[in-house]
């Protein structure tokens, strides 16, 4: 998936999971602003893993504070997957 497609897809996933219009979610949105609690965050990571076919480390969730953190994390994991030998 091209890098440019990742952010809009993640915005859609988060908006849908919280029942919000997609315009209400931006990369700068914090989880606190979107009222995403710990459990929402865990459910979100399961969904993101399935859609992007990646594995997110269990202990990385506390470092996710904004939507941009998720976008950056997914981009990094997808890039690592495309490395030779990955």
């Amino acid at each position, binding site marked *: 998936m091209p890098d440019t497609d990742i952010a809009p897809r993640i915005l859609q996933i988060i908006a849908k999971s919280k029942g919000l219009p997609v315009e209400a979610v931006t990369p700068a949105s914090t989880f606190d602003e979107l009222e995403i609690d*710990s459990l929402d965050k865990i459910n979100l990571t*399961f969904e993101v893993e399935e859609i992007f076919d990646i594995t997110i480390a269990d*202990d990385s969730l506390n470092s996710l504070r904004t939507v941009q953190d998720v976008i950056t994390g997914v981009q990094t994991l997808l890039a690592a997957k495309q490395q030779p030998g990955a």
Partner: protein
Amino acid sequence: MQIASVGTAFPPHRYTQTQIAEALVERWKDKLPEPRLLTRLHANCGVDFRHTVFPLDHYPSLQGFKATNDEWITAAVSLGQQAIQAALAPLGLTAADISAIFFASVTGIASPTIDARLINLMPFPTHVKRTPIFGLGCVAGAAGIARASDYLRAFPKEIVLLLSVELCSLTWQDDDQSIANLISTGLFGDGCAAVILAGDEVILPTQPASTPKILATRSTFYRHTEHIMGWDIRDTGFRIVLSPDVPKVVLENLRGDVDAFLASQSLTLADIGSWIFHSGGPKVLEATENALSLPPGALALSWKSLREVGNLSAASVLCVLEDTLKNHPGAPGTYSILAAMGPAFCLELVLLQW
């Protein structure tokens, strides 16, 4: 009166958070629709290590309330004795010097109580006054100090013991794969703490260099919040009640209650030099930092205790107190707040001066 010393004791088995998660996934492999939900919740509890009464592979053999509670009694007596000795020895005291015992736990029950069993093992006076406390949960460490200080206001020549033993691993429920229980099995650990408090007219054989005096305490009860936290007691034992609303209650109430308490002592938040808080969990500690607008690192000892031993219910704030007394005492004249919240929901605040 002063808080003269704190002693702690832990069971011999210590595991990483990952080892405990793996053991529970194996134990519940036929019951967990998504095992990674457990490992992911455990990995985000802010806990790195915990002590357990038994090796992890022994727990599946403990079935039913009687078996686990019998083990709780045996372990509580053993750990209690160790913690009391650790608290008394540096002061040059023995159990014979104690006039009253406050015993707090919410992870097991006994009658005669654990304090009574300890009197048969240690040279406590036969006229020692006993106050066993069950059900206050996480707030009981702070509330125990507050009730012990109430006692010492009446009896300033006496020395009292507060003992808390919490063996949370003995409350794990095989038939509960709720989110609350998955979090609970990731957050709570086993441990014990004993605190020695001395009245204003007591001269200790060995006076520690720096101890805090208790200036004031305040209990606050939040009406109609019974659903927030507690036990749903069943034939199999203690099933956890743990609402995701706990941080919300902290955010909505803590600041106002701390401000009002300090105002009653002609103080403000700016006068408080250090905070000795119950290590409730990441969300509770973050909510506390936000509610009180605390500077970075203000709750460092609570976070450290959470990482190293998990949430020990009533004993947690006493472990943070031990670390404060031994390694981070306040400068003479400065103030500290010792605090915990727990089932009811409720708050206990204790104002200390070094």
